[in-house]
């Protein structure tokens, strides 16, 4: 993977509004900091190569390299990425109940992994007044505190970076596809550092179509409701076209047409809906609010699921064929849309001195009926 | 009144804020005043106290008082407390005949500290200073001053060195008279040691150029 420095990160990502605020570039140096859901560069840094750039999920992401690192093979461009199996799941009877987004699969898996000491600590994401706050926890009992989806840009990866500094060796992390792309990049030791250690003990991905800018959402919602009272946000499947906000005493629906302008530009070039670089990926199951879709990708993931099932933390079932087809279509569409957009924006497979956000083999683009990105030459 | 080598004789004392420039130029001015010369001292201070360059122009003349600034290219002697400042002054006031006495201890500016500029080696500075002047003396007064107990004696040594060149009538007893106006007897003693030390530095130094 190509690695540049902070100035390129500033020019190619931050200044081009491609930053998703994942925090991968923060907590490793004093120059990039995350505050209220946004990442900024505080002072200029002159390094030619830096971890900030190497970690960023919006700069020089070579999908082939990630795929061969995770799965030992080239990127195939299939809608759901590489996986062993797709099932549906929900928290089992042993799991403490909570304010789960869907079936509570994520919370159950993290609780179980912490209890079994498969991981020493977990990076989970909370929010305070709609401002995302990643935390590092070590107690299984704390996991449910983080239940429910925070539909905002969150610097979750910053806490993973911090966990490394604090000396944790096996850390579990729950994240969106972009956040887990950063984690995967981090795990490849992109700068070939001698002192490098892979401390990602477990990666649980969340499905994601898009997210919202934390500050914009805060501004929008606080003009309408008391944000301190929000319990849950949800986006029911089409054709609903609304964002439902459940508060302590009410449930309101807000039209997506008012919500969509708050989607970060970075999401438009994101080809990943199902968190392809995770051990397991979890999403909702259309029409069954109490259930999750669960994609088991790695051997580690498969082992975790069978143990969790055996100990009563998880219940699984067969994935209905119709739901599977629906999911594949949605994921495939997002992928094609993203590659097209990236090409249009001039940040796909850039040649010569050009800096790309994404790199994917031209054959795959052809298969997906997207014209070759070869004419993206350096825009210096 | 002994006739001056040049009328006016243009002497520059240069250094960095906090090195004691103003004090040195005052002492020299007062010494030469006793001889009956006309003295004008121009100095740049104010904001330059904060790490910037500081320069005193001394105009020493026989009848009329001259302006507080030496005209371009017309210095006769530059006493520098810092090598880069010596070069800087040469840029404005230097000429092929000018004499230079330079304390070789560098003081790095923020621009050097932060890596925007590189600071030349002492050898390089010496070569340039010799080449740009008619005669140059390189001394290590900071070092000697620290040995004497305080880096501030460096100024006094440079006054001694200037006296040692014999270019201006800066007699030892005049020096004593002038500093005795400000300092107590025991301090005068220390300063005389510094003055003598500076004088010997120039006398012992193999002259360049």
């Amino acid at each position, binding site marked *: 993977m190509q690695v540049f420095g902070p100035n390129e990160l500033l020019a190619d990502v931050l200044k081009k509004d491609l930053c998703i605020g994942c925090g991968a570039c923060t907590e490793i140096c004093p120059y990039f900091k995350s505050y209220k859901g946004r990442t900024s560069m505080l002072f200029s840094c002159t390094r030619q190569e830096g971890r900030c750039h190497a970690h960023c999920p919006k700069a020089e992401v070579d999908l082939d390299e990630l795929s061969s690192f995770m799965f030992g093979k080239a990127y195939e461009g299939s809608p759901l990425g590489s996986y062993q199996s797709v099932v549906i799941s929900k928290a089992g009877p042993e799991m403490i109940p909570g304010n789960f987004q869907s079936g509570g699969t994520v919370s159950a898996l993290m609780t179980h992994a912490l209890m079994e000491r498969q991981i020493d600590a977990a990076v989970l994401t909370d929010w305070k007044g709609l401002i995302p706050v990643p935390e590092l926890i070590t107690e299984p009992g704390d996991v449910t505190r983080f239940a429910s989806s925070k539909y905002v840009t969150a610097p979750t990866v910053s806490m993973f970076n911090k966990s490394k500094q604090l000396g944790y060796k096996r850390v579990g992390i729950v994240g969106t596809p972009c956040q887990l792309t950063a984690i995967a990049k981090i795990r490849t030791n992109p700068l070939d550092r001698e002192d490098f250690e892979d401390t990602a003990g477990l990666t649980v991905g969340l499905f994601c179509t898009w997210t919202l800018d934390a500050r914009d959402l805060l501004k929008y919602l606080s003009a309408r409701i008391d944000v301190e009272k929000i319990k849950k946000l949800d986006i029911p499947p089409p054709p609903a076209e609304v964002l439902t906000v459940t508060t302590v005493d009410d449930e309101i629906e807000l039209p997506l047409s008012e919500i969509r302008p708050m989607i970060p530009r970075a999401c438009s070039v994101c080809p990943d809906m199902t968190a392809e670089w995770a051990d397991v990926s979890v999403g909702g199951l259309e029409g069954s609010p109490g259930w999750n879709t669960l994609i088991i990708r790695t051997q580690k993931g498969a082992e975790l699921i069978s143990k969790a099932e055996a100990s009563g933390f998880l219940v699984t079932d067969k994935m209905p064929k119709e739901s599977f087809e629906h999911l594949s279509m949605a994921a495939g569409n997002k992928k094609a849309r993203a590659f097209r957009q990236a090409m249009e924006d001039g940040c796909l497979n850039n040649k010569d001195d050009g800096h790309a956000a994404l790199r994917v083999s031209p054959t795959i683009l052809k298969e997906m009926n997207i014209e070759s990105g070869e004419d993206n030459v350096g825009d210096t | 009144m002994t006739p001056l080598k040049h009328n006016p004789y243009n002497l520059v004392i240069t250094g960095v804020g906090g090195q004691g420039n103003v004090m040195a130029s005052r002492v020299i001015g007062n010494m030469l005043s006793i001889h009956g010369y006309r003295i004008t001292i121009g100095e740049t201070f104010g904001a330059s106290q904060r790490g910037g360059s500081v320069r005193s122009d001394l105009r020493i003349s026989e009848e009329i008082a001259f*302006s507080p600034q030496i005209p371009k290219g017309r210095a006769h002697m530059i006493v520098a407390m810092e090598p880069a400042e010596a*070069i800087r002054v040469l840029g404005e006031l230097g000429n092929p005949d000018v004499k230079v006495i330079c304390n070789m201890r560098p003081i790095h500016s923020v621009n050097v500290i932060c890596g925007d500029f590189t600071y030349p080696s002492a050898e390089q500075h010496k070569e340039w200073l010799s080449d740009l002047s008619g005669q140059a003396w390189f001394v290590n007064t900071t070092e000697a001053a620290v040995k004497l107990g305080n880096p501030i004696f460096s100024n006094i040594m440079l006054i001694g060195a200037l006296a040692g060149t014999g270019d201006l009538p800066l007699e030892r007893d005049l020096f004593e008279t002038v500093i005795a106006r400000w300092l107590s007897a025991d301090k005068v003693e220390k300063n005389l040691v510094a003055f003598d030390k500076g004088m010997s530095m120039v006398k012992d130094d193999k002259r360049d150029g």
Partner: protein
Amino acid sequence: MSAILKGKKGDQRLFMGNEAIARGALEAGVNVVAGYPGTPSSEIIESLSRVAKDRDIYVEWSVNEKVAAEVAAAGSLAGLRSMCTMKMNGVHVASDFLLHLALTGTRGGMVIVACDDPNAHSSQNEAEMRHFAQMLEIPLLEPGSFQDAKDLIKWAFELSEELRSIVFIRGTTRLSHASGQVVLDELPETERKAAFRHDGFILDQMTGSVISLPIAFKHPQLQEKLQKAAERYEGCPFNSYTGPENPDVLIITSSACTFYSIEAVHMLDLQNRAGILKLTTTWPLPKRLIKKHLQTAGQILVVEEVLPFMEENLKVLAYEIASEIGIKPILGKRDGTLPSHGEMRPDVVAGALAGITGTSVDQRSEEYEKKVNERVFFGAPARDLTFCPGCPHRASLWSIENVLQMDNRQGFVCGDVGCYTMGLSPSNFGTLKTAHSMGSGTGLASGFGKLDRFGMEQPVLSVCGDSTFFHTGIPALVNAVHHGSNMIMVVLDNSGTAMTGFQPHPGIEKNAMGDVAKSIDIAKVCEAIGAKVRVEDPFEVEATQEALFQLLEEEGAKVLVLKQVCALSPEKKWSKKFEMSVDTELCIGEECGCNRLCTRIFRCPGLVWDQESKTARIDSILCTGCGVCASICPANAIRKTPLAANGKEVA
């Protein structure tokens, strides 16, 4: 004993221009002196404050120039001799009061010394004060030598008492801050009793009420005084001519430009062709004296700083007498012979004079010029001004910069006047984005803070020094609070007027004469005004940033007082709180994760980058032991060991 008191009549002393002025004031028997510090004027009051007790005079650093003028005027109205000092900007501040004082007139002698700073060595502009004399219709004097600077003060007091009017004296940097020989006169024994008379006839300037009305009476009276001044100027002993009887070129000059003119004539060896009329009385011009000299001259060159003030007035005069003496070519700034910006120098004047007389100035050889310029480029690296080691402003601006960048809404800081103005430069984070006059940062912020209705979402901050706070910061804050402006005023309280040399101000428990004075608590003042106030120590970096983040969340006008004594202050110098060291094992230097944050960005001169070991190092001579760098190091490699007050390590 202070330098300006030493010596008896006839002794010669080497004085700085400002010391000469101070000695002059003593020789004139001044009683009351008030001013506001500002380079290049500050040493006048500094010198006088040191001898105030000895000479039994009253000296104060006033809260601002307007109040200084009022305090001095009170002395005059009570029959005493009073002097007021300020830098040129101060005249703008004081001018409203002075406009009225000119009309009411004075009683005891009152002299205002205002110092201009051509080339803006220590200022943000090079505006001049001379035009104020014209606008206010009061006489102006410009000393052209160190001796004049001293002797003129007494003459000015006498003139003031004769006219019963304020007299302006103009200093410039090259006179105020340069030194030359001065022959002393006696220090008189004065015994003046102060009393303010107000029981006389209303129109009697000496005994009635003091008021600028009725204008139909007072304005013509003022103009009569000015005419009388012009008359007295005809015989002023501080005007002099040197040169041939009928010079080809007559240089008319004043102030420090007298030196440059003398030197230019000398450089070109034009003693037989050029004459110099040193004019001390530059407004109103003495008509007969001017006429006498214009008559004898071929051409005239006017040499002055900065604008063609004298030149224009001379031209008006020359026109009025053209029928008698014919039309004389008057060269200067209006025709471009000399520039109307920047300061004059001997070379500049010589160049102009050479052009007029067809002579030339010796130049350095091209070869030397080329060589020396090249070596300056490589051999004399730039020396940007920076905050001192251990300066609280560096710490304060560091925190502000970090917070505003993290906040990421293009927030900005309106700057003000003080050492912290250096925060405009990239060497000091470039945190400040505006800089105007005293107190104006907060006034601007008050305005910016109301623009949210027009869609402005940027956070607005101002910084203001403690002295500036009292000077003009308070009304700006009152305005912001009253109008509910969204802004944060950060008061950088370093306990003194550090920029100009630690003059006391109302926040300090000491006055100019060293007596105990009631200090005014800035935070309490702000609270009383109605602002939400936080007080922090800028050396506590985390707490400071936390406070800023919190204040950014609040509506309305807020104040953050960052209190920490200036590193140069006498009380702090040489006393280290911490012994600092760098753990070279932990320092990551240029590597990813730091890239020399401390030496490249934070840039305290006490920290040095060691090229050989590739780690940071503490320069223990420069380091003041403030400990701030320890909290910015991302690798925790900078250690601080607490020291007791005696400099020993705490056990």
